[in-house]
């Protein structure tokens, strides 16, 4: 029960989500500790139990009310003041009085959670159920139970074929064609690289998936770039007229669906980038946004 209850000195508060035996689990790593979160989707009903126990029986604990709040918060280390509740719902468990051992059952039926949980470098979206014991004279006592939200994209994003051309006049003319711009998270990126002119001595070529976290704090916009992976697709110099296949499995890759302008402030976007490296290690690149969406929720997501 130690995981259930957490001691706050004067009392312990336990929050437990019920009806979760069939829920998928998302494993997250925070401060080098692994943590299993139950995965919910929007319009799911979130049921649970709250139990409070006073630890010091002789001393009475006065409070001015106990609240239960479910919320999804957009947090950013870049602007801590700007934490935004994306969704929230509050239930009053008790009015002012003396704390005594007690147990409540709660339920947030068909709760709307359009944004998914997200764990980024500077920015994150977290969902939790929080119990707050409000006090007049002292700091409120709080306890949270975090959970994860993943939403299946019922509507597959509009996909357009990608065609990127790399050209240096009279030296290089290559194009990349990918029939789709939208991929689900376990999808395979298939494409071709066609060479029309290659006077430059290319040594090899890679593709990379680059993630951009874009956060707009009051007046400034912060962009964080992160290379999710690189993948060598060619070794050696191509020859005019040749076409090289690209097959790249997204599975096992730590990527999320593309998020756009969450709370008008935050976006996560992915780009497919191609690097051409010549024999002097000079790099040429070209990139194009691709859209990820969620097609399925894995039973256990350890990524």
């Amino acid at each position: 029960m130690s995981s259930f209850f957490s001691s706050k000195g004067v009392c312990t508060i336990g929050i437990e989500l019920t009806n979760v035996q069939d829920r998928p689990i998302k494993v997250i790593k925070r401060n080098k500790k692994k943590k299993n979160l139950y995965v919910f989707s929007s319009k799911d009903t979130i049921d649970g139990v709250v139990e409070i126990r006073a630890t010091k029986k002789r001393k009475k604990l006065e409070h001015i009310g106990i609240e239960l709040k479910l919320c999804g918060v957009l947090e950013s280390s870049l602007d801590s003041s700007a934490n935004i509740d994306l969704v929230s719902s509050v239930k009053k468990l008790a009015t002012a009085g003396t704390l005594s051992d007690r147990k409540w059952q709660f339920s947030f039926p068909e709760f709307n959670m359009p944004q998914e949980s997200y764990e980024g470098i500077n920015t994150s979206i977290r969902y939790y159920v929080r119990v707050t014991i409000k006090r007049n004279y002292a700091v409120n006592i709080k306890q949270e139970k975090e959970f994860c939200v993943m939403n299946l994209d019922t509507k597959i994003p509009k996909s357009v074929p990608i065609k990127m051309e790399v050209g240096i006049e009279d030296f290089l003319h290559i194009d990349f064609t990918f029939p789709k711009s939208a991929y689900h998270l376990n999808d395979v990126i298939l494409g071709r690289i066609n060479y029309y002119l290659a006077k430059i001595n290319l040594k090899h070529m890679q593709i990379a998936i680059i993630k951009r976290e874009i956060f707009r704090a009051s007046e400034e916009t912060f962009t964080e770039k992160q290379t999710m992976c690189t993948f060598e697709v060619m070794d050696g110099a191509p020859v005019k007229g040749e076409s090289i296949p690209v097959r790249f499995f997204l599975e096992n890759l730590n990527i999320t669906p593309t998020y756009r302008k969450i709370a008008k402030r935050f976006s996560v976007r992915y780009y497919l980038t191609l690097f051409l490296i010549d024999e002097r290690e000079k790099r040429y690149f070209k990139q194009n946004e691709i859209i990820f969406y969620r097609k399925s929720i894995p039973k256990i997501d350890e990524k």
Partner: protein
Amino acid sequence: MSRKDKTPKISQKNQEQKKTPTTQVGEQTQLLDSLKAAARRSGFYLQRSVQEGKLSDSIKQAGEMLNGLRSSSLSPKNYYDLYLFVSDELRYFGLLLRESIKKEPIASIIYRDVQFTSRIIPRLYLLITAGAVVIENNPKKTREILLDLLEMCKGVPHPTRGLFLRHYLSQMTKDLLPDISESEKGSKNGNEKEIEKEIEKEPKNQKSNENENKNEKKNENKNVKIKKEESKTENNKNLQGNENEDKKNNVLPWMISINFTIQNLIEMNKLWIRIQHQKLPGNISKLERVSSRIKLTEERKDLCSLVGTNLVRLSQLDSVTLEVYKERVLPILLEQIEQCGDKIAQSYLTEAIILVFPDEYHIHTLPDLFSILPNLHQEVNIKNIIILLIERLINFANNNPKSIENTFLITQIFSKGISSITRKRTSLPRIHLLSILNGLMKLSLCLHPQRIDFINHMLSSCVKSIAIQKKLTKDEINEILSILSTPLDFYNDLNILVQLENYSMLIDTLPNENRRIISLKFLENGLNTLTIVSSPKKVSKLLEITKVLFLDSKDSISENEEDENLKSLFFREQYTVCRFIHLLRSENIAKSFKILQIIADTFSSGGTRRIKITIPPLVFSALQLANGIRQLEKEKKKILNNNNKENKDHDNLEDIGLSAKKIFEFIHKIMTSLTKLLPLKSLKLFLQCALASDKCNFEPIAYEFMTKAILVYNDHLKDPKTQYQMINYISSTLQTLRAFHPDNYSLLCNQCGGYSAKLNIAPHQVRAIVTCSYLFLSIIKQPLNIAYKEIKEKIEIQDEKNKNKKIVKVEKVKKIIEYKRPSNEPVLLYFIDVKRLLGCISRAIRVAGSLMEPSLLFELLIEILNTCLYFFELDSGAVNSSFINTLLDLILQKKSENESNWKQLLTKPIYNFYYLTFKHIKLCKKNKETKRLFKPIKIEKILKDFLK
């Protein structure tokens, strides 16, 4: 598994790259060793993961191990070394994959998982390994996987790495390629038929058993369906998966294998060629650049076998039948060869195709093969390719005689092909063309030796190719010599060779010394095989071919050749010629004579040095012929006698107007040039001719020859010793001649006696005169009946021609016939002139008497005594007993005159001679038969002398 990439070690790589051009061998081995060590380390971990059965760890370790193959710094050879090592280690990985595929039958998982590897080289090696395991586990996937692997391998256009990667692909799939198995053959037939109907071609069955199958099907219609179904279900077990798809595409399982292998071959060839065109780093000197290029070419050639394995694989597929090869394999290969435009690849692949596929296939695809040759890179050595093909075909034809149906066509294709090559490839070196023609000639000889016209045509091509251009090189000369030797060695029959009109034309293109070599070889061939050439036409061609040996020309060896080798070569040549002319003869006398005339004509322009050597054998050849004619004439006469001239068609000697006489006239003619050059030899030859003509009973001719001999003696012989020898020859010869009228005979005897008497040295004179004495008592040393018959015959022949002489001759002969020898056999006396005989003896004794040297005198006297005894014993009446007695007395007298130093003077042989002569007389006195004859001989004094 982590998908995060380690950043490439750029800095390190840069260093490596700069080193590349100047990398020394030592650095290479160092690098190789370190890469191998790294691979060994990963290999160790890989094995451990494999043993623990951890798939994802294994993939990681295997990927790690394969990273070594990403190196750009190794030379191709060292890269190959590393490749072998790593691919060997990869087997462990394959083992694990096999295990896990058994546990978890979803094959696609391993095939997918290995693709997470971010580096392309390791990824593709793993993919190939996994692909092979998947196919092995589930043959339905063969087509899908093979196509995918081919496609994915395109990701490595780096020449060396790509080449090895694809080689690995070919290695891993070699046992997995679907082929026609025994059980499938039947069904293949069916399927193929369907396909062929679709592409509107008549089904052709290559194998007889298939044909049988077909017939069965026709006959037993009911069973057909069942059979088909059966075979289908058999097929389905293996190939259900792709069958529908394959059917749509008209692709049979075995076609996949062929297409796959060809495709891989094409790609590998491209990569291989690209090694040549790799850009070198810009920071090296020109010299380094050149040497690097050369090195690169060398290394590239080392790698050819990687490309070649695909061809080998194709040839191993049972499904590549002749028809499949012709329709679906070769055209693609040839197109590729033609298009790639690379000289090394073109020559390697063409040669490899020739070597790898059965010769039978080549025979049926020759036009296709030839169609690309003219279009190959100018520097491709077409010669080697064609020669290789020819050698293969010859070999095949020799091992499988009668298996080639249309030999004529094959040669024609070759011939056409070669002429189109010469037309299109102006850069084809003359030496190559010559080699090709040589090869073609060998092929033609092998396939249809009877087609001499082909050989002749090729010789003419050779002549044409030489005609235009500059001086021949040493190699070209050797090639021409080889071309000339080819038919010679093959036919081993000069009669066939002389039918090659252009042979002598080709010989004429050579420098003199080489012409002599081949001409000599020609003659020696005739001698070794003892080929008789009997047609005058052929003989004159033969002499035309080898004329360099007969004709005097400026650059032939000079008279006073210093060089011993050249000198001996000249003699060897001429002696070979001498031996050779004896092979030129015919059963037909007229032809033989014609041949002799041709030879004589040819020899006449040979200059004195040659004539000296070559005329004598020619004379002997002619004498032989004369003898032959003589025999014929005899036979003819017999027949005439027996059949009363009824048999008219026996011989046509008279019809062609040829007689032995004519031959002798011919001999006389060719001899005239010789007398001044070789007096001694011609003298002997004249005597020989005299003997021969005497045998033929041509008195005037024999007389002429004898006169000639004496003339030569008179005009040309100055040395006393030679004179003595020759006069002996002349008189001995004369003594055996039988055709002469006694008057003529006696005339010649006089001449002999005269010349003998003129000899300068006394003992010579004595002995020569003694020899002459025999001329005057000439007997026929044959049994009487034969001798008589011979004489009679002669008389008869002379009867016909000269009736006046008849009586004289017969009388003379008859008169002297009845002499008897003391021994049993009576002999026929041919000529006797007692007076002159005694004259000779007396003259001999007189000349001997004038000698100052007692021992020599004594020796000569005993010789004379012996001669006299011979005449005495013949009982001819020429020498009587008193003459002998006088001679004996003379000997004793001479002996007693020198009694004092007798023993010093008398050498042992002379004494023995004396003693034996005495003993002979003694014996004859006792002998029953000769007792009477020898009775008057008095030997008492001598006996007394001996007893002293």
